[in-house]
Structure formats: C-alpha cells, structure tokens
C-alpha cells in the first residue's frame, strides 16, 4: 500500500530544503484545489512507494489564514498515514506550538529537529529522550542543509505509518481546561472517531467556526458544549481561544523545562549583527535603495536586456553567434560605412543633375549591370562629383564624416554584405529554421505566415522573456531565502499599507518598470492573498519598456520632444497604483480583515544553491506553461484578424501592407466610436491599441503600416508629421494614457492568470485596468480641451461628474478592522 507522509512545519524551519533532500527530482508542483497556495508532492528518493506531501509553512492550525486552512483540511479529510513535523531546533518554543496541535489529530507524528548542528555549536542542549517522552512521539535530529539524519527521519515516519500507531497527545492543559474538554468529548460522543476526538473537542472549545459547521451538532449537544466552555471561561477569566493558546505555551514551557538547556549568551549572533546594519534607522533605506538598484540593474537593465535581446533577436530572430559575433559586427560596420559613402556620392550626383534612377535600380538587382554603372561613373567623373558621407551612431549623433570622391565610390561599389554564417559559429534562429523547413515542404504562403508571423512570433515574443525572468527569479529566491525579503516588508510596510498593498509590493512595482511579466510574477513573494491580488491588479500600471516607444512617439510628434512627457508617464503610473490601492481596498472585493502584519523576521542565512535554482526553475516553467497557452491562442486569433480581409470585394489572405483591409480594421471601424469621447475615435488608433495587446511595442509599428509605411523606426519618426495632423496635444496625450493603463499585453495577462490562478479574478483585473484607462483618458481629453482650447460640452460634464465620483471613492471613509 502506498504511504503518504505529510511534511509540516513553520515557515523558515528548513522545510523546503528537507523536502528537496527527501524527494530529489521526483517532484510535482501544483496548486491546492481552488486556491493560490502552492502544493508540492514528491516520491521518497529511497522508496518510491512513499509519497511526501509538502504542506504550506504554517505556525498554527487556526481557521483564519488560507495556508492554515489548506493544511488542516488535508490533514483532517485526507488523513495521511503519518506526519513528519520539522522543527527549528534553534527556536524550539514557538515551533513546538504547532507540534502540540499536530499531535492532537490522532495521526502518527515524527518530530525532526532541524539545524541540530547550529544548536550544538551554540552549546545548547536538547535531551531527546526526555523530550520524546514528554511529547509522546519519536524524535530524530537532522540537519536538512547538510543532509544528515534525513533518511532516518523518513524511515522513522514510514515505520510508524506502517505500525498504524496514532500519536496520542500526552500533553495536558490546566486541570480546569481538561475538565471542560472532557465534557465536550463526552458530549460529541460517537460523532467522530476516537483517534481525533481530542482535536475536535479542543477546536470546539476554541469555538472554531469551521469545526462547528463540520460537525453540525444538535441544539441540545451544542448547548452542553457551550455551557462547559462558558464555565471554564468564567473560572479562568479569559476567552476560550486565549485560554488554549496560553495553555499550549504553558505546556511547552513545562516540557522544555527539563529537556532543554539554552546557553546563556551575552554576545550577539552574526545574524543580529547583520540585522543591526540592514534595518538600522539611518542605513536601512539607503541600503534598501542600493539592493533594489542592483536587482533592477542586473535583472532588467544589463544582463536581463542581453538575455532578452539574445532570445528575441537571436533564438527567435535571425540567429546568433555562438562565437565570432564581434568580427561579424565589425564587418557589418565596415559594410554599412561603404554603403553610406556610395549613397552619399549617388545623391550628390543626383543633385548635380545626373540621372541616377537606372543606377539605383540596377544596384538593387542581384547582378548589377556593369554597363549602367560604367556610364554613371563616367558621367560623375566628368562633373567632378564629390560628397561627404555622414556616419551616425545608434543615438543619431554624428560619429564621423568621410569625404567621398570617384575613387572611394569605385571601392564602395565592391562592398559585399557580410553573411553572419561565415563568421565563427552561427546558430540560425527558430523562425529561419522553420521557414527553411516550410519552404522545402512547399507549404502555402498563408500557412507559412500563420506559423511564422502568428504562432512563432507571438509565442517567441513571450518565450524571449524567459531568460530575463530566470535571472530575476534567482534574485527573488535569494532575497527570500536569506531573510532580506522579510526586512523589505518591515522597512516598506508603512508606505504601502496605506494603499492596501504590502511592503513587499515594492519589488513587483519596480520590476514592472522594466517588464510587467516578471513584475506580476514577483508578487508571488507576498503571503497575504488580498495584498497579492491587489499588487497583481495594479503593478502593470507602471510603464514597462515596451511602452517607451509609444511615449517617444507622442513626445516627439506632438510635444516637440519636451523633457517632461516621459516622466509624466511614470507619475501617471504611480498615481494609478496609489489611487487604485486606496479605492479598491474600500470596495467589496477587498473587504474584510486585512491580513495581520504579525510577521517573523527570520535569522539571516545563506540559502542553499539547490533551493535557489529549483525555485527559479519552478517559477519559470510555470510561467511557460500557463502564459504559453494564453499567448498561443491569442496570437493565432490576432493573426487571423489581421491577415484575413476583403480586398476588391474578395475575402482572402492579405499581404503585410494591406492591414487596412483586414477584419481587424473592420473591427477597428466598428469600435472606434467608443474612443470618440477620448479624442481618438479613428479606426487606426483603435487597431493600433488592439494590436498593442499582442505586445505594446507593436503600437508604433502598426500605426506606421496604417499610415502607409512598411516599416518605421522604433519611435516612428517617419509618421510624426502625419500623426501630428490627426491628433491635438490633448487627444494625443489621452491616447498615450489609455495605452499606458489599459489591459497589458497578452503575455502579462497570461502571467496575471497564472498568479491569480482564477479566471474570475483575471477578468476582474483586466476589466478594472481597462475601465480605469478609459476614465483617465476621458479626463485628459475633456478637461484638457476645456483648459487648452476652452471647449465645453456634454463630454466635459461627464468627465467632471466622473472626477467627483472618483474623488468620492478615494476619500470616503470605510469601516474595516484597520480603524476599529
């Protein structure tokens, strides 16, 4: 028979390390049914018959937190054959609090005292025999980190599971409490089996609502139970829940009295010394800023960008150089310089009245006609043409100027474009390989486009983020593992809780200024479900890297590149986060007790590398799986919408530049009226916004195509003029704000779905973001018009009314536990 062993213990007790040590690579990570609490299962390395179920890290079996309820339900309903309770030996008192509750369940328990090496080093003494006797269960000493004793712990758990010998809680509370519990046990009688009777009686004594509902006692029995509790409460002069909590700690104090000797230490531990610096009144904030800058700089700016560029332009682009990339770049630079010289010379010749059309045409051909070139060269020589080729760098600054004469022109004609495959080791990108394969199979153009432009481009755009995500996840795992993440919450709590967020929301917000996908996924570190949901809903308001081209387009085309446009986008993002937090926390959605901020600040320690890598991989692969499906579907849908349409009365497949005939364009036409109040009710803006859902950087490119350019620069310089003629300053800014705040790209929506683990909440998040974006853009356009152009109309009235409604939502008082 298969044996299930539940692994239970406090957070930071080394549970993850023990679980990894016991199961190795035989793990399955999922979620507990219906909730976002992670569930891990695995088979014991040494005995595949034994299944280990990793319960969430918990301090108690109260009915209040999600994690505790999940653990409770599993233990009561599924009744695993044994519980392996990991206990931090350097923090016995609080850890045993959970143990006393586990022992009452009537399931065989083995206690594994972890970090025994540290305990011994500190000179503390634990008398295992005595402790085992007093607790009434076997005890094993282990060091999960070093791997010592863990096999024995597992063996012991299997042994007692096979023996079917349930733990019988031997600890007894105060006599007066015991009388009441005995009375309750007698009252519930045969309603529960004898093994778990004490658990149920104790929970009923605590007035645990979940147990009350489960047992559904008859009215007379209930009255008897309530009597027993009331009497005890009266004698003890306290409420029942407090009595049990105090009694548990009293029992533990009694147990530890003669089985545990703590070395009296006057000196501070290393962890204390680290903490004195990291949370120092004056140093804490600067250090926090440095740590965050470092995380951002490495995972978003430098290494992260390289990784994303490599994945997007290499693996999912033309290809990349395994070695020899530098030589290729030099060759490309030289080639481009020559071409610039050639073009400058031709242009100068054109200006001097020489006909260059034939020449330019032949240069485009695979084998240019020598005759045409010779006649041009002759003519140019006679007119003594000279030019200056201006070489610009990436930022558009002039790098150098090369004078070009007839001799230089002759040289430039010999220029051959370097083939990347000839330099070092060239690895072609996925699209190149697939295209080759499709060509050789003779696949139809439309299918090729669906696979390449639809599926591979869409999914590739998302998978391209994976390397960057993995880098970020390493940081997160380290910050969590070493204990600093708890201090982040400690330092930032004051600021963020005002907006209904957690101190740990800072990291998702910061990361989202780079990319919203890792930002959303970084919210995983927030324990409270309420705070986590709020963070997920608001974090993509921060302008991500892909929205920068849109900002640049508006700033360049309409504001003459004013410096304040780009920072204003960030302020709007921050304002949207803050206002949303304040408004949402007062709504029904987030009503109820905020999660109490009663948090352990664990001792600092270096987390094992294995744990970090495993955590990185689990998060990364879960993103690929969950986000991948959303992306795949939506990429196909958008491709169909943009590539099929009516040309000259016929429905069919469209070329790249015929986007204006597509179904998507028709759709844009149909919905454009919705954007009229926002000032951009033309179908082109609507289509660009919809395409922005695939990836925000597509907004500018799509506008380019719709304005008649096959390709535009990243910031769309080519269309600035046309764009400016269609927009006013106010409507352009409204367009920007709508695109900044509305539903993020599909990849980020996929991440939201992954982290919410709930379709309803995913839709709530997207709907909220889009509505907020609409309202914000409405204000900008209507009130902006009133101020800038003095126009007043029905839209202005609507905008003012919604502003008032918004202010009401923002400032209304609300009753929650926060201001009891």
């Amino acid at each position: 028979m298969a044996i299930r062993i539940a692994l239970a213990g406090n957070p930071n007790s080394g549970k993850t390390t023990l679980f990894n040590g016991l199961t190795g690579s035989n793990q399955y990570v999922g979620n507990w049914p219906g909730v976002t609490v992670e569930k891990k299962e695995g088979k014991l390395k040494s005995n595949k018959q034994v299944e280990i179920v990793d319960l969430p890290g918990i301090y108690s079996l109260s009915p209040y937190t999600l994690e505790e309820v999940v653990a409770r339900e599993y233990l009561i309903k599924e009744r695993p054959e044994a519980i392996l309770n990991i206990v931090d030996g350097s923090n016995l008192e609080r850890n045993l609090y959970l143990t006393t509750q586990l022992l009452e369940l009537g399931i065989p328990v083995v206690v594994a005292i972890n970090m025994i090496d540290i305990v011994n080093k500190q000179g503390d003494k634990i008398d295992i025999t005595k402790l085992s006797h007093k607790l009434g269960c076997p005890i094993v000493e282990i060091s999960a980190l070093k791997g010592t004793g863990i096999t024995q712990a597992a063996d012991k758990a299997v042994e007692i599971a096979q023996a079917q010998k349930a733990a019988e809680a031997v600890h007894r509370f105060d006599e007066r409490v015991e009388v009441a519990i005995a009375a309750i046990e007698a009252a519930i009688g045969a309603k529960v089996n004898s093994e778990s009777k004490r658990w149920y009686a104790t929970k009923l004594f605590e007035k645990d609502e979940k147990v009350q509902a489960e047992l559904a006692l008859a009215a007379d029995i209930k009255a008897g139970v309530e009597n027993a509790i009331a009497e005890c409460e009266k004698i003890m002069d306290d409420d029942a829940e407090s009595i049990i909590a105090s009694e548990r700690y009293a029992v533990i104090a009694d147990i530890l009295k003669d089985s545990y000797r703590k070395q009296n230490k006057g000196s501070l531990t290393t962890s204390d010394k680290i903490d004195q610096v990291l949370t120092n009144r004056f140093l804490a904030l600067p250090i926090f800023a440095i740590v965050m800058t470092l995380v951002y700089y490495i995972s978003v700016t430098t290494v992260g960008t390289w990784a994303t560029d490599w994945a997007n332009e290499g693996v999912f682009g033309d290809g990349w150089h395994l070695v020899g990339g530098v030589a290729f770049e030099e060759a490309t630079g030289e080639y481009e310089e020559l071409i610039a010289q050639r073009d400058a010379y031709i242009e100068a010749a054109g200006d001097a009245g020489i006909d260059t059309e034939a020449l330019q045409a032949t240069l485009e051909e695979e084998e240019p006609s020598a005759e045409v070139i010779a006649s041009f060269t002759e003519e140019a020589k006679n007119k003594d043409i000279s030019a200056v080729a201006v070489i610009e760098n990436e930022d558009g600054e002039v790098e150098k100027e090369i004078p070009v004469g007839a001799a230089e022109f002759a040289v430039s004609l010999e220029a051959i474009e370097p083939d990347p495959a000839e330099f070092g080791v060239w690895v072609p990108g996925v699209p190149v390989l697939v295209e080759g394969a499709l060509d050789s199979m003779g696949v139809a153009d439309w299918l090729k486009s669906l696979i390449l432009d639809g599926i591979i481009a869409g999914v590739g755009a998302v998978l391209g983020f994976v390397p960057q995500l993995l880098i970020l996840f390493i940081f997160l795992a380290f910050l969590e593992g070493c204990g600093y993440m708890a201090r982040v919450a400690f330092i930032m709590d004051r600021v963020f809780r005002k907006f209904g967020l957690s101190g740990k929301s800072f990291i998702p917000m910061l990361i989202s200024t780079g990319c919203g996908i890792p930002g959303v996924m970084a919210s995983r570190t927030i324990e409270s479900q309420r705070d986590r949901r709020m963070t997920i809903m608001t974090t993509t308001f921060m302008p991500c890297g892909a929205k920068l081209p849109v900002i640049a387009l508006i700033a360049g085309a309409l504001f003459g590149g004013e410096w304040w446009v780009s920072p204003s986008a960030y302020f709007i993002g921050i304002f949207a986060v803050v206002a949303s937090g304040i408004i949402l926390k007062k709504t029904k959605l987030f009503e109820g007790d905020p999660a109490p901020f009663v948090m352990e600040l664990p001792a600092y320690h270096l987390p094992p590398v294995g744990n970090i890598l495993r955590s990185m991989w689990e998060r990364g692969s879960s993103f690929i799986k969950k986000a991948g499906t959303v992306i795949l579907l939506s990429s196909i849908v958008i491709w169909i919408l943009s590539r099929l349409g009516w040309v000259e009365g016929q429905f069919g497949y469209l070329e790249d530049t015929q986007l204006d005939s597509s179904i998507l364009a028709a759709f844009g036409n149909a919905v454009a009226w919705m954007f009229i109040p926002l000032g951009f009710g033309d179908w082109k803006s609507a289509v660009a916004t919809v395409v922005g859902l695939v990836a925000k950087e597509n907004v500018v490119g799509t506008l380019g195509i719709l304005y008649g350019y096959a390709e535009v620069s990243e910031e769309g310089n080519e269309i600035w003029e046309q764009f400016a003629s269609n927009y006013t300053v106010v409507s352009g800014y409204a367009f920007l704000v709508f695109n900044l705040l509305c539903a993020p790209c599909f990849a980020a929506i996929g991440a939201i779905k992954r982290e919410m683990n709930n379709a309803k909440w995913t839709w709530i998040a997207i709907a909220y973001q889009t509505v907020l974006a609409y309202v914000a853009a409405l204000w900008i356009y209507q009130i902006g018009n009133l101020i800038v152009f003095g126009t007043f109309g029905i839209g202005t009235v609507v905008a003012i009314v919604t502003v008032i409604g918004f202010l009401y939502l923002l400032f209304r008082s609300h009753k929650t536990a926060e201001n009891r």
Partner: protein
Amino acid sequence: MMATLREAKVGTTVKVKALRGEGATKRRIMDMGITKGTELHIRKVAPLGDPIELTIRGYELSLRKADAEFIDVE
C-alpha cells in the same frame, strides 16, 4: 502603571498583561507566542516609524503599532 505595547520604549523589556480585541489578528498574535505573562523585548522601530520589532521566545517578530495598541503591558 498600565500601558499598551505601543507606548513601550525601544530597548525595554515588558511583560504582557492582557490582550484585547478579537478575531484573526488577535489569534495570530497569540499563535506567534504573545500570550499573557510573556516577556517582550522591544528591539527597534522600522526606519519609517512603524512597525516595531520585538524579541519574544527567542526569535524576532514584527508588529504594527496599530496592533500593538491592543496589547496591555507592564
């Protein structure tokens, strides 16, 4: 003299006299080891003035001042 944990000075050690309030937050506070008669050492206040950090039963715990107000100490 009766006072709440909120008013207790950093660096002092106090004894829990009573816990007021009810529900999840109170239960959580008790689960974490703050029960009647427990000794608490107030270690520090966060750089922005809230929350506070306590040493209790040999480990470090952080608590908001708003919640500390419901703990009577002496």
